[in-house]
């Protein structure tokens, strides 16, 4: 068999293009369904474990999937906005404690998660370097963000404008990195966490500027009365919160109507969860969802689609196998003269079969090795791929 393999190897090397094409076809047909399975299994595990660890989620009535994807996996599809009033309402029931979430902005393409300190305890996130959020304008970043951008405590990260052409929008905010979280292998690794108030500053609801009552530049004053001073656009607004200007930062309006994207509701027990869900069944403004159920529905749909893809791949695979069989049968015809010669020299007709079999073995083996290599790469980067193809 060694000699047959050697002759087959020489033949395959001499006919490089043909061999490479066959290997590529077999590799793809084997790799695609296995890679898909790998990605889907990982995504199911990733989605399900996160969903299972999140009891209830309250948001504006609308797409439950958008709400879960944004709140749990920081998807950039922002659900309908709710207000802080919703948090007060749940707290008043005494059935659960809530963790507010405002996930709308980004910094260097990473989601900015505006939340409270409770979030870190709830998700069991530990600080690996630096310290926890302490003052307005600070951020704590996930291990993935720190690694990707080479950030360390003391560095800063700037929020991206909401939209490129939003001329009336808020200025980007330069935030100090106070700490870096330990890797958790969850979407938290890829997020920039800020205090809710800092998120509202990015929104433009809170801002800092020079004291108008003390300014010497009269050209910034649009109108001055006994009660108030109105400035024009020339007024300098701070783009970074520092110890020096922190006192100049303030919020306007009623805090109870400040925006949130969702509330994580952690009920005291199963009974409290049931009661809480019952209360919101008929609510026209909000709905409470169980992330586990939403993700289960999503996975069922994904696997339904996968079954269709599997069927398509099976048909394409069959067509490929037939095409490869045709290539080999044509190859035998083309090599008829060679086979006649070796028969005349004294080899059996079985040798011809052995030579073809050896070629198939080498091609399948090469395809298998490449396929295994590709699957290894997919496996090593499966989390990134899941984020790329499933979560986004």
């Amino acid at each position, binding site marked *: 068999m060694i000699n047959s393999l050697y*002759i087959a190897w020489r*033949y395959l090397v001499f006919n490089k293009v043909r061999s490479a094409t066959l290997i590529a076809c077999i590799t793809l047909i084997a790799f695609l369904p296995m890679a898909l399975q790998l990605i889907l299994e990982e995504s199911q595990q990733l989605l399900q474990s996160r969903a299972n660890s999140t009891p209830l989620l309250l948001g504006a009535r609308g797409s439950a999937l958008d709400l879960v994807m944004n709140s749990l996996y920081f998807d950039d599809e922002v659900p309908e906005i709710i207000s802080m009033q919703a948090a007060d309402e749940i707290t008043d029931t005494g059935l659960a404690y809530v963790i507010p979430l405002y996930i709308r902005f980004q910094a260097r393409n990473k989601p900015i998660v505006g939340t409270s300190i409770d979030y870190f305890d709830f998700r069991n996130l530990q600080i690996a370097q630096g310290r926890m959020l302490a003052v307005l304008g600070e951020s704590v970043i996930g291990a993935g963000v720190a690694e990707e951008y080479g950030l360390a405590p003391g560095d800063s990260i700037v929020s991206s404008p909401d939209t490129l052409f939003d001329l009336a929008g808020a200025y980007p905010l330069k935030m100090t990195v106070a700490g870096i979280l330990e890797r958790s292998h969850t979407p938290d690794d890829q997020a920039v966490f800020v205090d809710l108030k800092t998120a509202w500053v990015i929104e433009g609801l809170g801002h800092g500027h020079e004291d108008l009552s003390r300014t010497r530049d009269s050209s910034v004053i649009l109108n001055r009365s006994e009660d108030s001073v109105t400035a024009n656009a020339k007024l300098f607004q701070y783009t970074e919160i520092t110890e020096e200007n922190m006192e100049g930062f303030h919020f306007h309006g009623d805090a109870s109507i400040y925006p949130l994207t969702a509330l994580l509701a952690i009920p005291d027990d199963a009974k409290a969860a049931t009661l809480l869900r019952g209360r919101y069944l008929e609510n026209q403004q909000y709905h409470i969802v169980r992330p586990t159920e939403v993700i289960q529905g999503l996975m069922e749909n994904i696997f339904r689609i996968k079954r269709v893809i599997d069927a398509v791949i099976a048909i394409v695979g069959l067509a490929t196998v037939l095409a490869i069989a045709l290539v080999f049968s044509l190859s035998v015809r083309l090599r008829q*003269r060679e086979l006649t010669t*070796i028969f005349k*020299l*004294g080899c059996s007709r079985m040798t011809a079969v052995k030579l073809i079999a050896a070629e198939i073995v080498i091609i399948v083996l090469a395809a298998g090795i490449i396929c295994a290599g590709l699957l290894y790469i997919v496996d090593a980067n499966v989390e990134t791929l899941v984020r790329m193809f499933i979560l986004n």
Partner: protein
Amino acid sequence: MIEIEALEFHYPQGEFHLSIPRMSVAQGEKVAVIGPSGSGKTTLLNLIAGISCPQQGTVKVAGQTVSSFSDAGRRDFRITNLGFVFQDFELLDYLNVLDNILHPYRITRALKLTQQVQQRAIDLSNGLEIGDKLKRFSGELSQGEKQRAAICRALLPQPRIILADEATGNLDPRNKGRILDLLFENVESHGASLLAVTHDHELLPRFDRVIDFLEFRTGAAA
């Protein structure tokens, strides 16, 4: 070395019929076989090699009746006792010269590819003046070089008989003489017999004997 007695052969289809009452080739003898196309010259080589079997009569090669062997036995006998040289060389385009010379050793269990065999292949190729072209593919060789490689392949298993089927048919006059010289030299040095089918009557004086096939032919084209 070759003894044929009362041989009768015909193909299942067609009117061709070969009848050889008696023919022999002695050890070390160099015999040319001539005759018009279709007279059965190649058929004779096939019968001696055991590729075809006669309906009647016997073909003895090196004292053994070839047709009495099984199919596998005939193949083993062929690869160990006979060396074929073809008109179109029949070198494999995907193997280099050395691999082509060693090819018989890789397609049968009857021959064992050893270090000595590899060294012999190199020595043979040096003797046939293609030692510097062992890594080249057949497509990179001249016609003369291809036939030298084919002769090396035929001689390597040290066969008792060389069967050459128009071995010089595709060569220019200068190469014809040179290839025949090399073939004769190597056949003599190995103590083998040579049975060469040829259309080239200019080369006939160089053979020990000439067999004209016209005397055996009784049917149409082979």
